[in-house]
């Protein structure tokens, strides 16, 4: 039996041995149709039987940007580097929402799909990937609204102008997706065993937001706290995003490179955790 078994070609070998990182790129490609239908499902199903539908994605950032404008700029007097406060907060919200949505949806992968995962096999990474595509759709809707306000402010004489720098924006969005995916996958892997983390996600994301230059420009951070800004990979993304759009912000190339390095490290860690967790999640979920 062994001689035949060894000499034969096999399409799949399932073992107990754990490879450190199992990145099933070929398999994900074969399941691309499934990813497309999952994206379609989420886009269609979320707003079935709602009156406003996708308008909700617009209302949310506008309301919080209005609130931030009143509290931080109006009452708190925090500077926005010459950018109209409302646009400053709306741009911060725009990029932050995409990042945090990717993180949050990836972090609930195993918990939200437990029923499906214990019934049928497919590359599990397809689920957070599909989620980040869905989130990209939401981002697109919000970006259109942002563009509307942007041109309104430009037309009414604010000191902003679009430039060739916007070409870096796709790279920033990709980095947001990868960072959110990495951290989300890591949390998701840990939650298969210890559920506490699931509850901790929302407050952690909130805290992270406070440390991510959404409410204030990096230039207003005191010197002795700049090290936090350096450690936080989201800060250079937000600052570069604002700089690319409105020509205002503190961008240094080495900060962005460092942030990219942290992003890649977290992504790798997340994927390792995820590929370990997917092998046994069916037993512990």
């Amino acid at each position: 039996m062994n001689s035949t078994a060894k000499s034969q070609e096999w399409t799949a070998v399932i073992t107990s041995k754990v490879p450190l990182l199992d990145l099933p790129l070929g398999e994900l490609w074969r399941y691309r149709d499934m990813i497309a239908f999952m994206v379609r499902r989420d886009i269609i199903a979320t707003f079935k039987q709602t009156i406003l539908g996708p308008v909700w994605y617009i209302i949310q950032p506008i309301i919080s940007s209005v609130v931030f404008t009143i509290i931080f700029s109006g009452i708190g007097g925090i500077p926005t580097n010459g950018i109209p406060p409302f646009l400053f907060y709306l741009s911060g919200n725009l990029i932050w929402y995409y990042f945090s949505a990717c993180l949050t949806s990836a972090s609930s992968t195993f918990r939200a799909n437990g029923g499906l995962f214990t019934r049928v096999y497919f590359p599990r990474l397809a689920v957070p990937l599909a989620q980040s595509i869905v989130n990209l759709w939401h981002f697109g809707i919000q970006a259109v609204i942002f563009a509307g306000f942007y041109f309104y402010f430009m037309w009414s004489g604010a000191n902003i102008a679009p430039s060739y720098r916007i070409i870096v924006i796709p790279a920033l969005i990709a980095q947001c997706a990868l960072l959110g995916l990495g951290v989300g996958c890591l949390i998701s892997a840990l939650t298969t065993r210890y559920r506490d983390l699931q509850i901790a996600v929302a407050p952690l994301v909130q805290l992270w937001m406070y440390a991510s230059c959404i409410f204030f420009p990096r230039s207003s951070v005191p010197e002795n706290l700049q090290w936090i800004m350096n450690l936080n990979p989201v800060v250079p993304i937000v600052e570069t995003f604002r700089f690319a759009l409105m020509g205002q912000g503190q961008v240094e190339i080495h900060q962005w490179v460092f942030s990219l390095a942290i992003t890649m490290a977290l992504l790798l860690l997340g994927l390792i955790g995820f590929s370990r967790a997917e092998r046994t999640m069916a037993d512990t979920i």
Partner: protein
Amino acid sequence: MSSLAISVERVSKVYRLGEITRRQLFDDVARWVRGIARKRHVNYRDLGAAAEESPGATDLFWAVRDVSFDIKQGESVALIGRNGAGKSTLLKLLSRITAPTRGEIRLNGRLASMLEVGTGFHVELTGRDNVYLSGTIMGMSRHEVRDKFDDIVAFAGLEQFIDTPVKRYSSGMIVRLAFSVAAHLEPEIMILDEVLAVGDQQFHNQCIDRIKEIVNQGRTILFVSHNMSYVRRLTQKTLWMQKGALVEFGPTEEVVNRYESSSSSVAGERHIHDTGKRASVLSWRLTEGVGGEPNILARSGAACAFEFAIHADEALQSCRFGFTLSDFDDTPIFVATHGFAGVPKGTSSLVLELPSLPLQPGQYRLETKLYQRHEEVDVWHCDPMLVVSGHGLPPDRSNEGLINLESSLRMRSQAAN
């Protein structure tokens, strides 16, 4: 055709029982510390090592232990065993839902399972969208689903409703559509579960026919069932599992006979104090059978005699004895009622004789009723069940249908006209 489709080599799966609590964290740490103390590297998350390390551990459970077998391409194999034998775990390992603790599984070809239907259905989507979603989740490409789409919908009988959201469907309609998607997958290796054949009788038959069709297409099949008549009809070989281990792997007829006798004979005796009646049938056996202790294995087509042991607290006069033989699904096949003089006080035995037992191989339920005049004294759903073996039947004899009669075919001569 001798190449293998599935090769399972010394596969084990250990589960941790109970909930994951703070205690679990302490246990993990304790095992890890013990490993260090013995100067051996023990991965504290490796449950296999943990289970071997402390065989007495009550929180670790071998769901599948050291199972090896090979299935050739094109073979149809049944997986049988009682609840908790490890069948589901083995299927989960094969379909890559969970990873084995030990050992290796090799697959040649795409594997799809029809273990759970309706995977990935979303109630807000239309039937059409759900067919595509569910089909691609189960490994089909968009084009494959499109090619089969009309067949899938026709099989489910939902042409009219296919563009209606699934939440407006009845539960029966959802199940039919879900089964239909799964039934039209075309993988090289297919895992089937007879329990899936759900719905009304007509759809049930349609499902079984579809399963037969898949089997006849010459694909490699692993078929899970508790219904031995399906197992006998649909498979060539059978894997019998018990308590996580492989008991036997061989030709279906042999394995199933032994499985049925063993599963029947573990049943308990009926005791007088359990019944609390004036008189009761306590046990039954065949006066002459093929084998097994107690003797409950009959041979298809041969004569047989059932002997019933009766205990009576008092003598009964003008009695009647009712005997019902039913198939596994409790459909009566044969009913007999005989009057007799009476039952003496104490223990006695009645013998019921049949000149031949033309039943298909399988398990059958027996029921006895004891009446005095028109008053029912005792009813017993006999335990163990009767097992009929196909041993000695001509190999070309069809095992379809409920009963097994002698038949012959001849051409009538033209001269008669």
